[in-house]
């Protein structure tokens, strides 16, 4: 016998033979021959999870039981303090993996019975003093479905060999071929074009070959930059990069004496602004640098919250007073693992990100907040859980203050605080005012819910290092892995995970649910692969890149839009990604032309926010799609870039050019009123090359799109020729300066004239292509055309020194 938490004496049922009144034996799953109870699923074979989703949750439980049995529901958090809270707690769809979590809850609840019948089947009928009275009627389809579910759960039998809903929903989706995918992935993950060898390997569409390419891409520096970007979009610690000194200014040099000279405006170290800025960057970015460090070294991802060390590079080593040697004392990317000791002599209780000064200073607390804000972030960052979503019911503040200690005693408050406060307590010892200061024996607040996590209490012998205890606890929660997968998913696809459809009466409910199920299952399988790889985040990246969510280009035959709603990507490149793409294709980013040596990027500075980027402070979410302003920035980028680089490309020998590899300025479409056949042919051949290089599409010279682009060339050439335009190129568009160095070209190499008016026509073509959807967005190639690399790898740009300002 088991005793239900309510106090009822219970017997376990395995399986149920006779069920609620009016019901006969029930099929234990598809494949059963009973042929009666599973009326709703008679024509469809359903796994238990899918049966729960379709026949129970969507049919009634999600709209009926959740009125009272969610964490903030009146059954779970009763207003009357004398009323015992219900143990039957259903998580809302906003809870990661809510279906699995609720099924697990139901499995446990189904095992409790009274008088030979599961309590779960009696309460909704209004029996056993059910607070919600009668919510289901005997003999109704709902109680039959619930009975079937209870029977399945208690019998332990699955739904037979049912076809998997998630698999079937995505079956038939057309994916990018390997060669096209490799261009998309290479630009996305490594910020460069693929090499000819990579394209050839990928063109085999061999999975192992694709894996090998992706493994290679994930060893490149830009990949780590992408990882940092993805995780900063969540942690928002880049706020501390502010004015190049915010992270340092927030630190107390009594905790970190190494920073003293960098906080003293009269010291020579303070005046070394470049080094000071690097130190500030290293402190601010320690959380995302730790993620990058873990990923780069194929370490378990769990270390982001469990690492019993801090990582320092030459700059944080100064800040933290770490006595370590570096091969290159100016290499930001050289990291060492150390133990940090504060100025007080107290050793920092390292717990990955949780104990970094950046996390503690970015997400501060107050004497009354008592780490609750940090707790909320822990749930959000590492468990994909928005605690605020469980407390949206109306409150009456006047009643909140009727009793003592409302955060614990008022049901209005404790609905959140019973979850929030234990994790807040795990941060005990971190100072309320001096945020990165740690005092192991600091007292905590006894009136709050006890420090802990998920029902586990922080052991007294861990009071002096609560976050070290908390980190491993987080990694025991399934949501930790879902969170990591969803962060990467959003980072790569630009999509938020689908919401579970809430309107079961909507005409597309079935298809929308199928789409959600497919994605839910994809996440589950990716989590499995993630765990099987010893939680190497690269496994997640590979799974997503190879999935229809990243590489889908056409729907399954006959599939409705609702069923395909998250397949494929159409993500407007953010400012960082667009900047990298321009550099990858042209060898030069879009920079302020009068500042070659400093190489300021328009996209990463003046237009970063307007083009949809974030400042990690006031603007914390990226623009989902273009607006009029972003569109205009695109125009400015296209016109300036084409102006700066067209004539310059012609200054170089043909074999060294990127853009005009089969054409010379003297080749014109017409002469003396007659078509120059060779000229037109050469022009179109070069247009074909430009489409390949800039847009990643391989087209025949006879393709209508090549003709459309040719008309841009021809129309411009004709306009200028007929108008008798002067020979001089506009000053800013002349090929006078090497944009890689900012230095003047030799006079003989300069291109300042355009007597044949072709350079300006080519400038128009380049402008036209830079404005293209396929350039401004992650390559989707929706028409399914193949593409391959035609240019040299842009890896060589590293040799000209661009990355220094890209950090």
């Amino acid at each position: 016998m088991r005793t239900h938490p309510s106090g009822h004496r219970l017997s376990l049922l395995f399986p149920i033979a006779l069920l609620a009144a009016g019901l006969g034996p029930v099929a234990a799953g598809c494949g059963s021959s009973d042929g009666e109870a599973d009326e709703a699923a008679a024509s469809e074979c359903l796994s238990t999870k899918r049966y729960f989703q379709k026949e129970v949750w969507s049919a009634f439980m999600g709209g009926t039981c959740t009125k009272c049995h969610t964490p903030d529901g009146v059954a779970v958090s009763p207003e009357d303090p004398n009323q015992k809270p219900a143990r039957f707690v259903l998580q809302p769809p906003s809870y990661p993996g809510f279906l699995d979590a609720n099924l697990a809850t139901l499995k446990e609840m189904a095992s409790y019975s009274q008088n030979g019948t599961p309590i779960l089947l009696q309460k909704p009928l209004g029996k056993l003093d059910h607070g919600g009275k009668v919510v289901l009627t005997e003999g109704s389809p709902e109680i039959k479905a619930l009975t079937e579910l209870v029977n399945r759960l208690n019998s332990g039998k699955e739904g037979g060999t049912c076809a998997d809903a998630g698999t079937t929903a995505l079956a038939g989706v057309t994916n990018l071929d390997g060669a096209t995918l490799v261009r998309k992935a290479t630009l996305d993950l490594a910020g460069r074009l693929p090499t000819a060898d990579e394209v050839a390997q990928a063109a085999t569409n061999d999975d192992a070959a694709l894996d090998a390419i992706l493994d290679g891409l994930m060893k490149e520096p830009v990949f780590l930059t992408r990882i940092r970007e993805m995780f900063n979009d969540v942690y928002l610690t880049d706020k501390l990069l502010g004015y190049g000194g915010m992270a340092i200014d927030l630190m107390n040099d009594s905790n970190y004496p190494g920073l003293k000279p960098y906080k003293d405006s009269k010291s020579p170290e303070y005046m070394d602004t470049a080094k000071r800025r690097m130190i500030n960057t290293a402190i601010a970015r320690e959380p995302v640098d730790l993620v990058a460090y873990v990923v780069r070294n194929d370490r378990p991802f769990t270390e982001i919250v469990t690492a019993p060390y801090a990582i320092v590079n030459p700059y944080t080593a100064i800040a933290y007073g770490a006595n370590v040697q570096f091969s290159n004392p100016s290499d930001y990317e050289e990291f060492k693992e150390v133990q940090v000791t504060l100025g007080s002599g107290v050793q920092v209780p390292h717990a990955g990100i949780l104990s970094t000064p950046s996390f503690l200073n970015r997400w501060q607390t107050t004497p009354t907040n008592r780490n609750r804000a940090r707790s909320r972030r822990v749930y959000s960052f590492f468990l994909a859980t928005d605690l605020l979503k469980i407390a949206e019911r109306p409150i009456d503040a006047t009643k909140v203050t009727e009793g003592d200690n409302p955060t614990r005693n008022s049901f209005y408050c404790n609905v959140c605080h019973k979850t929030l406060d234990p994790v807040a307590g795990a941060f005990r010892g971190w100072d309320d005012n001096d945020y990165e200061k740690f005092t192991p024996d600091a007292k905590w607040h006894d009136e709050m819910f006890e420090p802990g996590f998920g029902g586990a209490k922080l052991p007294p012998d861990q009071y002096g290092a609560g976050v070290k205890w908390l980190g491993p606890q987080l990694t025991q929660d399934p949501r930790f892995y879902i969170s990591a997968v969803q962060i990467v998913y959003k980072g790569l696809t630009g999509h938020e995970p689908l919401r579970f459809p809430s309107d079961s009466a909507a005409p597309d409910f079935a298809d929308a649910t199928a789409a959600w199920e497919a994605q839910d299952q994809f996440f589950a399988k990716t989590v499995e692969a993630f765990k099987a790889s010893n939680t190497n985040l690269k496994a997640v990246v590979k799974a997503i890149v190879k999935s229809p969510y990243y590489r889908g280009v056409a729907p399954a035959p006959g599939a409705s839009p609702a069923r395909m709603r998250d397949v494929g990507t159409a993500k407007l490149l953010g400012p960082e990604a667009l900047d990298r793409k321009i550099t990858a294709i042209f060898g030069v980013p879009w920079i302020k032309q009068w500042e070659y040596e400093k190489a300021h990027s328009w996209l990463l500075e003046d237009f970063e926010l307007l083009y949809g980027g974030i400042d990690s402070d006031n603007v914390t979410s990226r623009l989902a799609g273009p607006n009029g302003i972003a569109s205009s920035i695109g125009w400015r980028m296209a016109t300036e870039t084409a102006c700066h680089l067209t004539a310059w490309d012609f200054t170089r020998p043909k074999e060294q050019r990127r853009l005009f590899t089969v054409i010379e300025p003297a080749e014109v479409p017409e002469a003396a009123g007659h078509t120059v056949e060779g000229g037109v042919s050469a022009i179109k051949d070069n247009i074909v090359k430009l489409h390949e290089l800039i847009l990643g599409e391989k087209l025949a010279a006879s393709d209508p799109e090549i003709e459309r682009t040719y008309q841009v060339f021809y129309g411009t050439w004709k306009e200028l020729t007929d108008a008798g335009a002067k020979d001089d190129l506009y000053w800013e568009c002349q090929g006078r300066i090497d944009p890689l160095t900012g230095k003047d070209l030799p006079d003989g190499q300069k291109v300042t004239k355009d007597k044949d008016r072709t350079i300006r026509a080519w400038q128009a073509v380049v402008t036209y292509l830079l404005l293209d959807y396929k350039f401004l967005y992650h390559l989707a190639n929706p028409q399914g055309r193949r593409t391959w690399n035609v240019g040299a790898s842009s890896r060589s740009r590293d040799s000209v020194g661009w990355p220094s300002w890209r950090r």
Partner: protein
Amino acid sequence: MAPLTVQRRARAANKYAGPYFVALNAGGGWDPTMLTDPKGGTINKTFTAAATAGNLSYAPIEYKDDDSGKVAYTAKAFFEKYKDRLLVINGVDTTTNNHDTGSRITWSGMSTEGQPALAAMFAAQQTKDAPIPMAFLSNGGFDATEGVVQLTRSGSIDSLRRIAYPNVANVGDVGSEKPLSYFVTPDTQSRIAQAQAARLGAMRDAARLPVHAAGMNALYLARQSNDGLDLLANVLAGQKQVKNEDFPELKDVGNLGALQSLMQQAQLAVSAFTAGVAVSANLSIGGFDTHSNHDDDQSRMLIQLLRGLSYLYDAADAAGIGGNLYVMVGSDFGRTPKYNNANGKDHWNVTSVMLSGPGIAGNRVLGQTTPEFGLLQYDTALNPVSEGRHLEPRHIHAALRQKLGMAGGDVDKRFPVAGGDITLPLG
């Protein structure tokens, strides 16, 4: 797949002529008892008696520079000057003390997720037949659009001037006697645009996945509305970005950075309205979450809020649009009537709202609170009764939607707000 529902429109720039809407957000939860619902005694240590301006009561707060003792601004100066245009609504129940939910309910009228901000809905309605580049300009705060309109983040005046003329090399000479230099000729620019639109249209028509179709549709629509930025540039020509030092009373006064930011947000919003390229704007000033050191920090923030609002009114009046401008000022929620141990005040679900605009009768106060800063209940005509309902943001939004001409429109129907059980007499 189903054909895309793209409304094809002429590329000629649309110019919007009003009315305009500004949502001014005091982020973090302000203290109405230090503003328009003044309560001294144990509730506030900063003053003992409320002051009045016309029919309005207010807390007589001010902000002085610590070093010089110079008074930067006072509540008295604000309320005396603007009382006739201000409708104060006190005793509003946000029903939450949760920041996210509070912001959502204050600015959308509803606590449930998936609701757009009123500013977004108004912009969507006003531009549904004639899109404009920056219909909804946001500087932060609650700015959910739920897809009804494109949101535009604000930028500096200098940046906007540069992209307003994407084909002009010497943008600094726009508006001067100097000839403009173009990267490509205007005819070529037009040729490129037409070819691009045709190509994008062809790709969009061939797109087979909803994600692709939506992405192309978004770019298509964005390009339809990017004309007209030159209108903004014309308005901005010759303008300098406003700074605190432009005002003698603010010059060299410390800790007023938020005010300068707020004035710059207001300057750009008024410029965008005047140029006819924006309908609504979110202005945002944070720092009101005063769990500690409440009196100093809250009063400093409130004074900056009032001074920034003053700048907005004056700039709009100077631009000739003040009479066509709706302004709603609010916050996540209010703050407790008690101080905590850190001399701060925590979250409280009782708040106030300030409204102004054409057809909104000023110099009035609607709603009230108990002496302990508690809520009252009202009948449908807003008379206090013992058994009624609290005044909530949904009632304000329902009344505002009426005033803004939104009630019954497409957006109103799509995102209904249930506020009919109290009728607020806005004017």
